């Protein structure tokens, strides 16, 4: 059974990813491939539903960190939402909550893309 599941949906200019399971050193490549593919297809506004993300390690954080600069350069962004307390606490340990946009709900998350 896959430890990490990624469901993808494209809505106009917005790429919506729902990630479920465990994002660690053995599964991060799957998310990396998905985001790399999105950027190659010029999808630079990425909404990530973390509601069913049970665990994230530095390999998962590393995927997000490695694309922050590219997205900034191309005026795109990640918005993550629906994080569990434990996952959000880990973002805070690294200070990533200040560098990535994190929302509570899907509605709030989508509001960050209202102008596209």
């Amino acid at each position, binding site marked *: 059974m896959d430890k990490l599941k990624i469901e993808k949906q494209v809505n106009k200019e917005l790429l919506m990813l729902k990630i479920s399971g465990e994002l660690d050193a053995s599964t991060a490549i799957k998310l990396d491939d998905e985001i790399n593919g999105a950027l190659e297809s010029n999808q630079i506004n990425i909404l990530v539903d973390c509601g069913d993300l049970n*665990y994230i390690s530095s390999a998962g954080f590393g995927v997000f*960190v490695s694309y922050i600069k590219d997205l900034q350069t191309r005026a795109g962004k990640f918005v993550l939402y629906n994080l569990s307390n434990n996952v959000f606490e880990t973002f805070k340990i690294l200070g990533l909550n200040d560098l990535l946009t994190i929302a509570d709900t899907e509605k709030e998350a989508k509001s960050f893309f209202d102008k596209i």
Partner: protein
Amino acid sequence: MKQELKISCRKECLSDIRAFVNESLAHLDISDSLLYKIVLAVDEACSNAIIHGNNCDESKEINVELEVIEQILKVKIFDIGEYTQNYKEVGAISLEDHINNKDKGGLGLKLILSIMDEVEFYTKNHLNICQLAKELA
């Protein structure tokens, strides 16, 4: 009582290591948040040993030991790999540099150093030992 796990140097074994830590510490009166962070720190230290120390060589193994003595969790991870990077240097790289360099790695040490009270790496009798400690009270 000391809990021990010997496991192959495969990234796919990390979930087994997390389950081992969770099960070994489940009886302790600690918050879910603290348990999650300890599991994360041990996962990061084992990832480091598996990936950077042993190049994911499945023929090699790492040993993980957990022991609680007087409300202090002591973790030791043993392996025989070869490390080329100094953990203090890697841990000192700023988040800004990670972003500017588009680095995917190196954040694990930051997490370990932030979560655990004591972090030490040393070699004894050709064995690499990563030693972590965390006060649980």
